[in-house]
């Protein structure tokens, strides 16, 4: 093999590696810092849920309300002591928009990483979902639409609940 051919092959391999690396980040089943199984309810392809949730403005509104409630919650408030609530609101808003097929990317840490060692129980996890439902109620998100978002979050139980 001549040197030129070698470099061509080498460049092609690098190109392939790069594209596969980029595609790994764009794996449609890895969204919101979580790896979904290829079954059941997965993050939607289109932006139907994002639109039904009311778009970025409404999602930001109920997320802000949601964060305001969970940090004061009798049961789960203690997990959020010392947390920067503005940053948390921004992160969660981006996560919900990404999960529902909207034009934002979640750039935070993986769900497993952020919750490691916290000792979150199923009851804590469910309580968070209940508070999110209340926040969505207050923004008049229809119940069936709420369930579609909660359904995407429910699978995260295996990464979030460690107790």
């Amino acid at each position, binding site marked *: 093999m001549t040197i030129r051919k070698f470099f061509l092959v080498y460049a092609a391999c690098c190109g392939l590696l790069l594209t596969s690396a980029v595609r790994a980040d764009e794996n449609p089943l890895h969204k919101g810092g979580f790896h*979904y*199984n290829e*079954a*059941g*309810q*997965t993050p939607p392809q289109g932006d139907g849920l994002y639109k039904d949730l009311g778009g970025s403005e409404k999602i930001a509104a109920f997320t802000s309300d949601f964060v305001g409630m969970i940090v004061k919650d009798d049961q789960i408030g203690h997990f959020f002591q010392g947390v920067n609530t503005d940053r948390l609101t921004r992160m969660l808003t981006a996560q919900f928009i990404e999960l529902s097929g909207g034009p934002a990317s979640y750039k935070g840490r993986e769900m497993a990483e952020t919750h490691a060692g916290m000792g979150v*129980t*199923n*009851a*804590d996890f*469910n*309580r968070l*979902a*209940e508070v999110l*439902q209340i926040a969505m109620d207050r923004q008049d998100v229809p*119940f*069936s639409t709420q*369930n*579609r978002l*909660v*359904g*995407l979050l*429910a*699978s995260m*139980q*295996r990464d979030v609940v460690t107790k």
Partner: protein
Amino acid sequence: MHFKTILSIAACAVLLAGAGASADEGKLLATGGVSQVEGAGGGGLVPWALIAGYETRDGVGVTVHDTYVPLSDFTLHSPGIAIGLFDRVELSYAADLFVIDNQNLMPGGLQKGYTLHQDVYGAKVRLVGDAVYDQDSWLPQVAAGLQYKRNDNETVLKAVGAKDSSGVDFYFAATKLFLAQSLLVDATVRFTKANQFGLLGFGGPRSDAYQPEFEGSLAYLFSKRFALGAEYRMKPNNLTDFAGVLPIHGERGAYDVFAAYFLNKNLSLTAAYVDLGRIADVSLAPLGVDKSLEPRSQRGAYLSLQFAY
């Protein structure tokens, strides 16, 4: 007598809960199901794979229920209790009190007001899956259960030709909550010899073998507190005649359409329209009785109240 049983079981459960296992009421509203007629957690007629009560895998909870079903010629009253342990095991007891309201229905001379009575002791184990969390999976929550039923109606059982006054039903239930569609689906297979849920004994001249019967439920969640659904339950066909003279027609399946309202995690109310088919569908023709007095399909209301602690 049945209320004493329920009260003592409730007392034991409360002690158990106090003795160390916590009561976190951690499950999401409505995800414990309601109480079916034989006492197990599920819909109104069908046992589901869900474990009764609101405790998560970290706790023990109790539910107490009372069910009242006024039908065309009978009234069923079924008080009961269930204990949910660590979202894994469920133990239950229910009394089925079946009062005969129509004198014409019992040509054997039994009085109006005669009560068929049955005790049902149940146990259920969740085997795999979680109906709520496994959203990115096709795996349902699967449970295996049994119901030991004991009757004390020797007179009637002899007359219809039942082989036994007690028996055990075995079942497998698969339940899944599809949150994306706000839909709960259950499919249950029950192996049973019971005639009319056991109220007319077990086995009969036509068959004394276990037969698989299919049961299913579908429920749509309209809101956090309100679900609407329908159920169907097949029944076996073991009996042939009454008092050796009057033919008994085959049992049809039972079905209901229900509405369940969950006020909070302590109280739920279920109302349904139920059709249990013809119960002891005895043909009175050989007696020369007018056809208009023939037994009819037992339809009516179903009302159930469940209190959870």
